[in-house]
């Protein structure tokens, strides 16, 4: 009889114990797998940049013969000559100057205009305000191509060419996003601050300068970084409107025709043009992300 009696079930605590042990084991291994996968992905993601960097420090004649990774095995392939000859190249120096001459005003002008317009759209009550803002939102996604030809004709008609044309075009196509960002930011600040300033007798312009601009700093910084990176890296607007300037992107593009033989100029050129955006990226990471995430509407 006793033999037929059902075996008593193990205590509940033991079962729970067992379950958590297997769970922990599964968790441990799956975490190991996840770690491994992510390490592989991270390495793959870094490989192209490292490849470029190594290529730019490698004897250019070797590019047509063997892969850049050979230099990691044989350090004698490394050389500074690509950079030393490029950094004394007048064309490159002019390209860096041109890029700055394009990007700085193309950032400052729309940022200031958007701060003003965004403030007006957020705080000042006037008829048609919401409709105007919806139009701005509609403009967010209008492709650059849509206005190139007529704008080109307008600039020619007005005798505007080169740098001012590029500034104006970047301003025009940077503004919708810039206004969108600033208006949404200002819509979130308490009106009481402005009222307080107004009661103290400050004029609208003073309020803007003394209250609004400082308050908007985080948004302005994100916007400026976004717009600066955008215009620094732009190719299309430069291709159409540049007259005698050759910014970095054009400098590189114009040398792509002889890729293998030009690699000694192209690869360090890519790196030189990327240094400033990368420094900004790492130094102002929070603002950079905020700007780009906001840019997901664009």
């Amino acid at each position, binding site marked *: 009889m006793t033999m037929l009696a059902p075996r008593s079930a193990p205590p509940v605590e033991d079962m729970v114990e067992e379950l958590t042990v297997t769970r922990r084991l599964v968790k441990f291994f799956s*975490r190991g797998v*996840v770690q491994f996968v*992510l390490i592989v992905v*991270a390495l793959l*993601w870094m*490989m*192209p*940049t490292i*490849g470029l960097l190594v290529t730019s420090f490698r004897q250019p004649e070797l590019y*047509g013969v*063997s892969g850049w*990774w050979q230099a990691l095995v044989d350090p004698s392939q490394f050389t500074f000559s690509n950079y030393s000859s490029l950094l004394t190249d007048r064309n490159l120096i002019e390209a860096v100057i041109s890029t700055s001459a394009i990007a700085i005003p193309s950032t400052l002008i729309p940022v200031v205009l*958007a701060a*003003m*317009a965004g403030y*007006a759209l957020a705080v*000042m009550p*006037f008829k048609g305000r919401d409709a*105007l803002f*919806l139009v701005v*939102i*509609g403009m967010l*996604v*209008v*492709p650059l*191509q*849509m*206005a*190139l*030809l*007529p704008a080109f004709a*307008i600039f020619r008609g007005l005798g505007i060419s080169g740098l001012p044309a590029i500034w104006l075009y970047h*301003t*025009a*196509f940077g*503004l*919708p996003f810039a*206004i969108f960002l600033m208006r949404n930011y200002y819509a979130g600040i308490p009106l009481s601050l402005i009222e307080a300033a107004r009661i103290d007798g400050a004029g*609208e312009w003073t309020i803007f300068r003394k209250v609004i601009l400082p308050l908007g700093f985080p948004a302005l910084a994100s916007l400026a970084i976004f717009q600066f990176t955008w215009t620094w*890296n732009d*190719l*299309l607007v430069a*291709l*159409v409107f540049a007259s005698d300037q050759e910014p970095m*992107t054009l400098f*590189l*593009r114009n040398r*792509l025709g002889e*890729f293998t033989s030009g*690699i000694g100029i192209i*690869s360090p050129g*890519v790196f030189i*043009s*990327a240094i400033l*955006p*990368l420094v900004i990226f790492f130094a102002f990471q929070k603002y950079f*992300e905020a700007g*780009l995430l906001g840019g*997901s509407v*664009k």
Partner: protein
Amino acid sequence: MTSVEATKQRGARFGVALLFLGPAVLVLLALVVWPAIRTVYDSFYDSAGRNFVGFQNYVDMFRFERMRIAIRNSFIWVIVFPVLVTTTGLVLAVLSERVRWRTAFRLILFMPAAIAILSSGIIWRIMYETDPSRGAINALLNVPAAIINPPGNLQGTAPSTDDVILGDGGLSTTVEIGADGGVVRLGLLRIRAEDLPESTIQAADPVAAGAGTLSGVVWRDIRSGDNQRGVVEEGELGVPAVTVQVVDSAGTIVGSAGSGDDGAFSIDGLDPGTYSAVVPPAEFQGSWGGISWLGPTLITIAAIVAGIWIWGGFALLVIASGLAALPRELQEAARVDGATEFQVFRRITLPLLTPVLGVVFVALTINALKMFDLIVGIAPGSVQDEANVIALEMWRTAFTGLGNRGLGSAIAVFLFVLILPVMLLNIRRFKLDEDRR
């Protein structure tokens, strides 16, 4: 406050608003609104903008080969790119939530966003070099390729005499086994002495070794100074470790041997008669030549992969911030109820994330349509036509060569029409947001 004063103040307010808005509105009107309208107008005129041509430009757009490829490629981009990048971003966002170094991981993936897209194209052009000894992508693929299909030791070599033939069946020549056996000499050219093993020595000239035995040599029929083809001379090296088979007239392998350090080999037990001495084709198997990523067939796929590299970090970051904002209670509750991690993800996390995924997807769709710099950077000049997309073709038509204003405008309008649904969606979305406030 009297009504007159109120009106005055409202008027003043409006004036102030105008001052603040004026410059921006003026620029937008002059350089976005007006030119856009003008582009629509121009799209119905000829290349010089003089004669009205109706819808001719829109018809031509689908007729020209170069443009048809551009339109086809843009559609491939729109269909493939947003799905791939959003999926990549989602998977990596979920996975990276589980590791402690997630910030570093996301930073690494996001970094390409700082680099000019043209430059990213150039960077990938370096990665995509076809020769596996030069291009990193093919070098990585060459690792499994070399295991599945290892290159032979004799790749690239050629026989030194006319009676030895190299074909699909490998290297072969006819041998006669007589009363005192037979002799065969397999001379090779285009083989470098430094590619031979260190143990290699002077080749041994074979001599008939008696009935039923084939004596032979595989050797490097090259030496400095004058050189007689087909004759084993002083200074010529043996080629070791080459498998030689003897095949009878029925095609059956009747014997085989490997060559020694002096290149000599011998095969016993052969009846008198005519045979073939064969070196199997595997020895001559060339190494893998690599995939031609930047060739006309694969260029768009290659560019899309580079696109994943550029925008994957953006998708990852947006989705990760969406994930972080999700309420944890639901997921915890499901876990307590015994749901597996996958079920939690599938039934709870994913539905809650849908709006964020939608935003990312739409942003990527627009980017796919506006694709321009990447193509310029990644596609070699000879395949620019095959890599072409609408946004690039607009510039090419309007601003290169003679410059066709009507057609260029029509392409711009076409691009805009494709983006239009997103524009309406944005407006609607924002209207809803405002109404909810």
